[in-house]
């Protein structure tokens, strides 16, 4: 990989990472609400969206193995900017960055009952996120009555797999959905009801 060919990462690492983190913290605290990451300048290599790239730039480093299906250019770009080591398999990764169909959730790090925090975070790039109407009806911590979220681009049957993930609480993975510069999150506590 030619370093000269790599597009830049966060332009102001401290401030940009803080802004992205707050968007993520808010998204994770209010499951299903769509937040925008403040990275207008970011031009990650295809197929990475600015949001998915910003999540990794904000959270990944040498301590977090990353598995991705995004291809060699994207992997090299992430490794260069974050120092994250590649994970040998999805099951070894702290962050699983999926641009296509995410790997089976139960094959990822689940944490243990004593250490449920040692679980993977799935960063799934999807076609579009639309809050407030149709799609999923979400409930759980962080949600007052119900949040609605329409996700375009996740495989059929994802809600059922998510229910299985939720059933092993406190173990289980957490999900960050990315589209363009938008993010939404589903911690493992969130319940999905599909409403078409």
């Amino acid at each position, binding site marked *: 990989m030619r370093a000269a060919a790599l597009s830049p990462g966060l332009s102001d690492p*401290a401030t940009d990472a803080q802004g992205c983190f707050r968007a993520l913290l*808010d998204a994770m605290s209010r499951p299903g609400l769509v937040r925008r990451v403040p990275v207008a300048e970011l031009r990650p290599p295809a197929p990475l969206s600015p949001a998915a790239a910003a999540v990794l730039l904000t959270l990944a480093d040498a301590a977090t193995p990353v598995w991705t299906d995004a291809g060699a250019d994207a992997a090299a770009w992430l490794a260069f900017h974050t120092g994250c080591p590649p994970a040998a398999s999805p099951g070894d990764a702290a962050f699983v960055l999926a641009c296509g169909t995410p790997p089976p959730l139960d094959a990822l790090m689940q944490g243990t009952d004593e250490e449920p925090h040692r679980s993977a975070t799935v960063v799934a790039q999807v076609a579009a996120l639309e809050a407030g109407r149709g799609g999923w009806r979400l409930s759980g*911590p962080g949600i*007052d009555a119900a949040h609605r979220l329409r996700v375009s681009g996740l495989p059929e049957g994802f809600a059922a797999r998510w229910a299985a993930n939720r059933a092993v609480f406190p173990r289980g993975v957490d999900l960050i959905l990315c589209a363009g510069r938008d993010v939404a999150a589903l911690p493992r*506590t969130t319940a999905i009801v599909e409403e078409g």
Partner: protein
Amino acid sequence: MSAAPEVASGGTLAGYNFAYLDEDTKRMIRRALLKAVAVPGHQVPFGSREMPLPYGWGTGGIQVTASVIGPDDTLKVIDQGADDTTNAVSIRRFFARVAGVATTERTADATVIQTRHRIPETPLREGQILVYQVPMPEPLFRLEPRVAETRRLHALGDYGLMHVKLYEDIARRGEVEISYNYPVMVNGRYLMSPSPIPAFDNPKMDRMPALQLFGAGREKRIYAVPPYTSVRSLDFEDHPFRPGRADASCALCGSRETYLDEVVTDDRGGRRFLCSDTDYCAERRADR
């Protein structure tokens, strides 16, 4: 050896990163915070750093605040409910120096509130973040001091020790003898220390619209309660949880609903009561 740090043109301390912590440390804490939010009430171990303030002075809360806060935030810091207690002043000054953020004493104007021992009387709203300084994150530590053992009990959700303690209190004294740091169940799963707030404040935690983050620096634990999450103070059907406060009104604003500090005025039993939340008390007086 470098020269004494000066305030840089950007308003932060020269020689130090924004908000004091280096970016690697913030990233580690941010990952812990997201996992803490995902498993409400579970204590996430983190690589707590040695801060320039002593353990016990709020190093956990400071690390959480430093990892969360940004240039657009407005910070309020309270200790014992008051903005002008010495440690609150000291921490507020620390962040004004190292992050150059705006500070306020008004609860309603703050986006991030760091607190020791109180929850503000003014109800918090969506979008605000309340950061608690926590001395002992483990709610069971007086009953089981071994960290390895309490971790096992949390994994099993086995909180019999605490139920027995409360039951014995009631059997002996007619009521639970815990008046602060009163244990709570979060989202029906994890027993959690609310930090040493008075039991009076516990009900404010339940389904609070603001995000609640807890930092224990010396014990190296972070935990969280997302907005609108059930936080129930442990009790029994025939002995419901009853938060207490001094049966008096504030000598300054007249409030009969707020938590009061007792001030001894002479050595002949003279005393008066004042709102512990200085901002709330001042607002009430200004409104009159």
